[in-house]
């Protein structure tokens, strides 16, 4: 009986020690999570489309928006710049826009990029643009139109710059 009690106490102490050890452990300093994102290098043509279609100052050209879009005709990144078509969008602004797009849902974006853009509807920003989900700005991308091809081709890893250029002519 005494021996049985000792075993139970021993197991209890071991368990408590294990819980404490787990609670106090820290992540490995060498472990990393490998996120796959669509290419930033090829983002610029899409970035210009997003600035034109989404980045007005009364929509996503506001600092309070999750999908924050910087660009020459909307919100400017540098305090030295003002919204105007008379000066170009800067490379830093395009880089920030890339960060906005891939940072919205990084895990899902990683999955879509790893799948070469298959099923882009997994991404909230795409669903909203397509009007598949409530979007104050309405439906701004139609299936197969130039904006759609620009977005989905970038997600696939092979951006269609010609269609992105066509998309810039949209009203």
């Amino acid at each position, binding site marked *: 009986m005494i021996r049985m009690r000792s075993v139970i106490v021993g197991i209890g102490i071991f368990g408590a020690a294990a819980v404490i050890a787990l609670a106090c452990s820290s992540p490995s300093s060498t472990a990393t999570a490998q996120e796959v994102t669509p290419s930033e290098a090829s983002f610029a043509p899409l970035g210009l489309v997003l600035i*034109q279609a*989404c980045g*007005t*100052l*009364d*929509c996503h*050209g*506001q*600092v309070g928006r999750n999908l924050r879009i910087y660009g020459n*005709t*909307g*919100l*400017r*990144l*540098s*305090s030295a*710049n*003002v*919204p*105007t*078509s*008379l000066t170009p969008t800067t490379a830093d602004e395009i880089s920030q826009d890339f960060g906005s797009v891939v940072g919205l849902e990084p895990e899902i974006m990683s999955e879509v990029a790893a799948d070469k853009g298959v099923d882009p509807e997994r991404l909230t920003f795409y669903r909203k643009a397509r009007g598949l989900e409530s979007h*104050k*700005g*309405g439906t701004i991308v139609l299936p197969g139109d130039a904006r759609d091809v620009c977005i989905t081709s970038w997600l696939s890893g092979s951006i269609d710059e010609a269609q992105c250029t066509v998309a810039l002519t949209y*009203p």
Partner: protein
Amino acid sequence: MRRLPLALWLVAAALAASCDPVHEQQIDALGGETPGVPRGPLHRPGQPCIVCHDGAIGDPPAFSIAGTVFAYGNDATPLPDATVTITSVDGSVQTFTANAAGNFYASANDYTPKYPLHVSLTSGGSTIKMVSHVGGNGSCAFCHSDPTGPSSPGHVYFNVPNGVAP
């Protein structure tokens, strides 16, 4: 069970409508009326009209589109009689004429634009077009506020270099 009189319900609704602190802050930020200018079509040029003209209980009548046209970018000289042309995404076109204060507006009952909108200004036989569209806010001054900065091109004005609106 006794029913509350209609007046009490209305008072309760008005109180509820007035309990939006963000809206209250937006209104407070506009400040008071300019001395000598009564409330009406000529008041508050350059301000975001639809902050107050939003149709909420206790607020003035709702506008769908409203703004002010100034002559220059660096002062507040109004541009009376300027024509503001609004083109909805469906192609429908509506024009408005700026009054003596440069103000123009449309009642929400009379005009419901379909966003995004494109805007142009005409005065003295010349027309300039706004480069970007209006995404969803009918107050020009929501975006075109002073001072000019990274989040605003400044107030709406007509005399721009090369005839290209920023």
